[in-house]
Structure formats: structure tokens, C-alpha cells
């Protein structure tokens, strides 16, 4: 009996959210099939890769990242270099130093860095918060204001601070907003519901439904992806049809597989940096084949690998 291929068609599709301006603007989402089922339908413009930099500079970065940015003396330099990283589609500035329990940099200082980075590049910019909800509620609206007209994506609007970030980003200054929830389809949906009730249009929302390094509760991340996509495509759930962006680097580079020195690790583990890249790549691949419309990475090798991976599957 001959093989009879049947396309798995959905009557719904993932929304499209554009970030950035001009020629280098990108569209996230737009697919109407399961990830990379290009033989069944459209994957839109395909998943995108973000290159992460932070306000904390390069001191704590792995050697390969340091080497890549060697010679950079300012955030503008770093940003330009990040933009030029082969395989990257957009730059992500993570304002990690804003955390009051960490470096506790002032809002003014961080806004200035964001401005410097934004002015230095022409590709789309995504700004991540400090992981502190109060600080982000103050910081991200100011970033939205300072970067007016750049159509940036401001991540990290959570249940506790979505009003301030959503209103400033999407309503007052016409940016895009990232709705972040903790690996639970219902929380993800609820946040989208209240965000749209606030007046933010669904076309301005990108979701971060949670992330983890592979092996670190990652199955929850993936099962949330599966369920969100099943509801979005299979049941035409409008409040779950936002594209998904997943920060990978900030999760994978801090786990022991990526940090344990060769001397402390089991013999067969190999060089620490290779392990870090492997963790970043395998986590990103799993996210992409499950749902993510964009992943955020930082190592040049990972960015190149994942970019190649996406190209070869599209």
C-alpha cells in the first residue's frame, strides 16, 4: 500500500508581532502548523535568534564570549558587535544589574545604557528586566519612554507588574510587550486576558511562558509549550495565539554542567566551555521544536549552530 501523506491542517494560526523598524525589522510568529512542519503549512518567517548582552559587561562571561567582544570598550561597541554576530536576528539587552538584591543600578543609569545600545544598532532590540517586579515596574516604563519610536520588545511583564509595563510599553509609547508567566498554561492565558483588558492589543504581546535549562525541570517548560500550542492551534484559543520567546542563555549558563571547572567535574565531562555551549544548544533546540518562535542565546557558537539548525529545517 502506498504511503498516503496527510497534512495536519489547523484552522487557526499564531499571531504575528513585528519588532524593530526599517529593513531589519523582524516578524515573530505567523505559523499555522506545529514547529517546522513546513510540509503541512506555513512557519511564517521562521523562528528567530536573539543575541543577549547585559548591563553587567563581560567580566563574568565565558571565554568564547569575551573573545568575541574583545576590544569593545563601551556598551555601544558591545551592541554593535552583538548585532554583527553571524546567525543573530536581534539583540537582547538584559538589565540584570537593576536587581535591588544585586548590583542595584539606578533606573537612570540603566535607561542610559538602553539608550546607548539602542542608538548603536539598527536591528530590533529586546529589553529584559531585572527579575525584580517592583524595580521592573519602574524601570521598564522609563526604558519604553526613552526608546520611543524604536518598536522594541519589553520583556518581563508579570502578573504583579503587567499594568505598569503593559500600559507604558504598548499604550503610551507604542512598543511591544513580553508577558512572562511561570510554566502554567492557565497563568499564561490569564496574563494575556488581563493585558488585553488593559487595552493592549493581542498583536503587541509576545509570551514568555517560562524557561529552564534542559534537565532542570525542563519537562514542565516543554509540556507548557505543548499545551499552549495545542490550545492555540487546535482550539483556536485567541488568548494563547501570541508568539513565544524563550530566554535560554540566562538559564543554561548558570547550571553546574556549564560552570563546573574541568578539575571538579567527572572525567568524561570535557572542557567547561564546550559543555556550556552544548547546554545552550540542546536547550534551544528543544524549545524551538516545541513552540518557541524566538530563543535568546549568547555564545557565538550557539548562535551560529542554532541559526544553521533553523535554516536547515525551514
Amino acid at each position, binding site marked *: 500500500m502506498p504511503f498516503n501523506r496527510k497534512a495536519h491542517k489547523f484552522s487557526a494560526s499564531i499571531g504575528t508581532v513585528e519588532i524593530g523598524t526599517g529593513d531589519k525589522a523582524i516578524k515573530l510568529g505567523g505559523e499555522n502548523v506545529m514547529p517546522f512542519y513546513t510540509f503541512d503549512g506555513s512557519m511564517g518567517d521562521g523562528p528567530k535568534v536573539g543575541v543577549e548582552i547585559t548591563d553587567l559587561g563581560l567580566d563574568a562571561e565565558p571565554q568564547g564570549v569575551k573573545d568575541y567582544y574583545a576590544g569593545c570598550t563601551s556598551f555601544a561597541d558591545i551592541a554593535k558587535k552583538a548585532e554583527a554576530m553571524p546567525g543573530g536576528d536581534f539583540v537582547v539587552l538584559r538589565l540584570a544589574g537593576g536587581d535591588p538584591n544585586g548590583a542595584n543600578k539606578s533606573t537612570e543609569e540603566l535607561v542610559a545604557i538602553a539608550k546607548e545600545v539602542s542608538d548603536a544598532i539598527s536591528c530590533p532590540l529586546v529589553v529584559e528586566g531585572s527579575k525584580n517586579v517592583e524595580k521592573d515596574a519602574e524601570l521598564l516604563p522609563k526604558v519604553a519612554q526613552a526608546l520611543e519610536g524604536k518598536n522594541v520588545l519589553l520583556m518581563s511583564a508579570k502578573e504583579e507588574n503587567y*499594568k505598569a509595563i503593559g500600559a507604558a510599553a504598548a*499604550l*503610551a509609547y507604542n512598543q511591544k510587550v513580553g508577558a512572562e508567566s511561570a510554566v502554567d498554561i*492557565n497563568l499564561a492565558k490569564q496574563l494575556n486576558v488581563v493585558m488585553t*483588558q488593559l*487595552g493592549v*492589543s493581542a498583536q503587541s504581546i509576545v509570551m514568555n511562558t517560562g524557561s529552564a535549562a534542559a534537565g532542570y525541570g525542563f519537562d514542565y517548560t516543554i509540556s507548557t509549550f505543548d*499545551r499552549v500550542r495545542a490550545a492555540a492551534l487546535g*482550539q483556536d484559543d485567541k488568548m494563547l495565539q501570541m508568539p513565544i520567546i524563550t530566554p535560554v542563555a540566562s538559564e543554561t549558563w548558570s547550571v553546574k554542567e556549564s560552570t563546573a571547572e574541568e578539575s571538579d567535574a567527572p572525567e568524561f565531562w570535557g572542557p567547561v566551555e564546550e559543555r556550556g555551549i552544548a547546554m545552550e544548544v540542546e536547550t534551544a533546540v528543544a524549545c524551538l521544536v516545541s513552540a518557541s518562535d524566538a530563543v535568546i542565546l549568547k555564545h557565538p557558537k550557539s548562535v551560529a549552530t542554532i541559526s544553521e539548525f533553523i535554516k536547515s529545517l525551514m
Partner: protein
Amino acid sequence: MTLLDVIFAGNDAVYGLTEKAIDDAIAKYGEDKAVSFPSTAYSLPCYYAVTGTKVTNLKELKEALGVVKTLMTREPRLHDGFMSGIATALCAEFIEVLKYIDNPTPYEAPCAGHLPDAAIRELGVPLVTGDIPGVPVIIGKAPTAEEGAAIVKEYQAQGQLVTLVGDIIDQCAEQGVKMGANVRVIPLGKDITSVIHVVSVAIRAALIFGNIKPGDAAGLMEYTKQRVPAFVDAFAPLNEVIVACGAGAIALGFPVITNEETFSVPKSLIVQKDVSKFVATSNEARGIKIKITKIDIPVSFGSAFEGEIIRRGDMQVEFDGSRVDCVELVQMKDLSEIEDHKIELIGPDIDEMEVGSKQQIAYVVEVAGKSMQADFEPVFERKFHSYLNCIEGIMHTGQRDMIRLRISKEAYNAGFRLKHIGEVLYAQIKNEFDAVVDKCQVKIYTIPEDCTKIRHEIAVPTFDKRDERLATMTDEKVDVYYSCIMCQAFSPSHVCVVTPERLGLCGAVSWFDAKATHELDPSGPCQVVTKEKPIDERIGEYEDVNEVVKKLSQGALEEVSLYSIMEKPMTSCGCFECICGIEPFSNGVCIANREYAGTTPLGMTFSELASMTGGGVQTPGFMGHGKHFIASKKFMKAEGGIGRIVWMPKELKDQVADALNKTAKELYGIDNFTDMIADETVTTDPEELVAFLTEKGHPALSMDPMM
């Protein structure tokens, strides 16, 4: 003159002035002279928003006035009054824009006049988030400067964005009130027409934040009514121009509060003769709820203190409901019966009580709100325990009239007194339940006779009535059930359908709890489930229930019955209090509770049963459920009900005996039904179980086979 006549007269007067001003300007500058407000992309924002037309020069302004004239219809109808109000506002905008011809700064500090778009984007964010809870527009001259300044400061303290028009500006300056956008007090201007600058803020907020299209006047008015929490406080005397402007405010959904004896229109034009009550009256009229960020008590407050134990030696005083009359109670009242934030102590304070003594206390929290329901009373009351324990130096146990409250010497020495209990209850109820509580006051009684009276004449009858209502609630008596998906984080396809006679399987969510959860958080985990399309009443299957379950389980579950364990049984997450499983030899079911560690006649322990039952899968013959469900008449009703129960652990049996025996008596006329049910002290062997049941004449033996 009727109110409409006054509005029309005011509108006509302003129109006349506007026409003359435009004509004069044309005579002076010529038709082509440009007109605009500085730093806005919205032309004349009010006119642009209402009509969709941008005005650029005097010629167009004159044409625009012709459009305004068409709004000024004179039929004696409310609509004509509103439209004339809008027309008056637009005329005011025209008069104001003329001030900006050849003069970029017609307003001098402290007056602001026109506000730039940037200010609106900046103010808009806290307005949308509720950080600015309201926008009072204060017009005219307060009876005295002190009273005027007091009102402004009160709004300011609440974080509201106060705008001032007219003599109130000088009165505030005289009283030394700080003014400026940074302190959220913005004087607009001395002329009444300068009020348009705050209207312009509201309207541009609608264009920017509400994405209202210019020209969509209906959408605009809907947005300002729903989303812009502005209102007008207008001091007497009111002239017809102010009244006409007020009509415009009301058309945008902004109520007007005045101390002038005038016509009053419910919810829109409100007369409050006592200006010291302007703030309360205005906030209530506009539905503005002030968030309490800091509770005014002399000790700390936080969950860190929740587990604090206060030993006898450390306590200043103790209120002990097991010895004397103590009670805590929430009562729903009418809005008019409550003065918000009134804390009353009736009787002696702690100062007058002997150190270490046992005292009586009754604290009654009275709440009112447009969406408040008496069913929420116990929901709030159950939170008291947590609220009071969060106070540093206070220990609270129990509920209703079986409470004990200890206050430590340390808290007393820090200045803690009984009114502070009221402050905490007030602040927490207002903050946590702001969706339904508009006003709240607290009464604290410490005189023995009062406490006795409140306990036995008010509280106990209330508790009895609530219990009675709970006991008599049936699935048939309500129109809707509630879904609960709180557990989906770890049990993704599980959905509970909570009915009055079948509480959530965790035992923690009754139909009332689910209802309250839904009302307080409408997009939250509990949603309304209708049951209008029965498929099979015997097993409790409904088309609409199935639809909800399918949707909420993301398609994992298609059909569910409410009353059957064999056909399409409800799923379980994993947090069930009990598991019920079919026992084939006796034709009945065994129940095991989570606390029971031993085995059951099914040859399985609770954990082994749980592995078959949890995870949101339908396993006919097994179900997870709450303890209270055991005595429900709906307990596996489709298979014959509680008469099927043949075995449960002794501890559980003792817990549910009274209720279960009562239900058995009503359903089957059997006395002391639990005596027929075996437990681990009788046997855990299926054959011995059948022998025991036969000896007792258990009804399950003669029922139809379950399989």
C-alpha cells in the same frame, strides 16, 4: 427654570462669547492665521476626538463653530442637555486656543493651561495602573480657604491627580499648598474655560491609551466613562456657564458634586452641602477606591509574624472565647449605613484592663458595596485569623465565637490598642476584597453585656442561618456551578466542577468559595458553568458542563458526569482528601482518606489507589473527593448513593458519622448506618467484609450490580 433650561442658557452664553472671540480674532489677524495648542499631535484635542477633524487656522475654527452649533439642539430631552454640555466644552476649547495665538505662554506659574502630549503619556501610565486612583477637577471658590486647602490635601494624600480651576487656586496658594505636576496638584487657570485643559487630558488619554479613533464620539464617551476616573467638585455659587460645563462633564461620565442647593441627578449631579464630606462623596460617586499602602499601627505587620506564639507570661491581656463571650463577625450593610474607615471602640481599652487578665471582646466588621453579597461574609471572616496573626505581638486562634486573642506586653508598650485591630481589619478587607467592598467600618465592643448580646442575639443567629443555608443548598436550587482549575499547574487536564452538593475534591473549595473566587477575580481559576442543557439527569451530565470541561482541559476530557463513579466520572488532580474505589465482592465501594496509612479490602493503600486515580484521567470505578462529599445525597447518586459505602477507615468514619447517618436516614430510613460500614478494626479482607455486611444487612448487597 429647569436644569435643562439652565444648561441651554449657559451653552448659549458661551457660544455667543466664542463666536465673538473668533470674529474679533479674524478681524485682528485675518482668516489664515494659524491656531494650535503647543506640543500636541492632536490639534484641538477635544474637537478632533469628537469630530475627527483637525483645525489649523481661524477660518477652519469658524467652520468648526458651525459644527458645534449643530450639537446645540433644544428639545427638552436629557440627550440635548448632554450635547449642549459637549458643545459648551468645545466652545471653551476654542476660546482657550485663541489665547495661544502669538503667545506660547498665555498661562503663568502656577497655572498650567494646556498640557503637552508628553505629560499625558507620563500621567497616563499611573492612571491606567490605578496608581493615580482619580482625577478631581475642583472648580470655584471654597467657602473658606482652609476648607478648600483641606480638600485638596486630602485628595493629594490619596495619590489623586488634583486639577484646580478658578479662585480655589488662590485659596490654595494662600494656605501654602504645594502645587505642580510632581506633587499631583495642577492649577489650570482662573477662567472657567481653562477647565477644558483637563478634559483635553482625559480625551487624549482615550486616544492614546484607549486607541479610540478620532470621530468616534460614542467610543470616546464610553472610554472616559469606564476608564478615566475623573469627577468635578464645583463650589457654590454655580452660574449657568458652570452648569453647562458640568453637563459636558456628565456626558463624558464624570459626576459633578456641589454644595449648592440645586437639582440633583442620581449618580451624576450630587448635592453635598457639607464640603468637609466632598472627598468621601466624590470618591463614592466615581467608584474610586483608595489603596491602603501602609496600615496605621505602631507595630509591624507581615506574614513573618503569622506563626508567632505569645506565652502567658508575655501577654498584656487575653480575650478568650472559651471562658467569656467573644465573637468576630462580618456583616453586610447598605452603603448608606456605613461611614468608610470609621473605627469605633465601645467600652474600655487595654489600658483599663488588668495585666494578664481574661477579657471579652466582640469585633464586627461592617461592609457594603455595589457588588457585595451576603455569601461573601464568611469568606472574609475566615481571613481574620491570618490578618490578625500578621500583626507583630498578636496571636489569634479559632473562628466565629470560639476565638482567642492574645496581645503581648511588647505590642502594648509600643502603643498597640484595640482600635488598631480595627485598622488592620479595615485595611486588609479593603485591599484584598476591593472588587466587592466599597465601604467598611469596624465596631469593637469590650463591655461584657454588649459582647454577650452581640454573640447570642446577632452573631449566633447569623452563624446558624449561614449553616442552615449551606445545609439546605442543593444542586437543583442554583442556576450555575463553577469550574476550578487551580491544580492544573501540576495536573494539566484536570477540571473540577464544583456544585453545592459536591465540593472540590481537595475539600478546600466549596461552591461558595468558588463563587467568591470568581467574583473577586473574574478571569481567575473559577469560572461560571451553566447547566441548562441536560443530557442525562440520572448521572448528572450536561452539554454545557461538557463544553466547559473540554475547553478547560484543552480537549483532554470530552464528557463528564457529576454523580456517577462508573460512567464518565469526574477526574482527580492529586490533592483529593479521599479516594473511593469499587469493591467487587460486596457490590459496594471502599473509601480511604489520605491520613490512613494501612491497606483496604481492595488490597491497596491510599497511595496505591491514588496512583490509579490522579493525573486528570477518568478511571471508572474510582474517584477522588472531599470528606464532606461523603454525606452528600449526590455521592455516586447514579449508582444508588451512599448505600454503596461498605468500608472506610475508622477515623474517617467517626469524622463523618453524624452527617452520614442523617443522610442515610433521609434516603433509606436506616438508623445508624455507619454501624453497617466496616473499617480496619473489623477487617481488610474482602471475604470477611462480605460476611460482616451480610450479618449487618448492609443495603449494598441487595443493590443492582455495579458492573
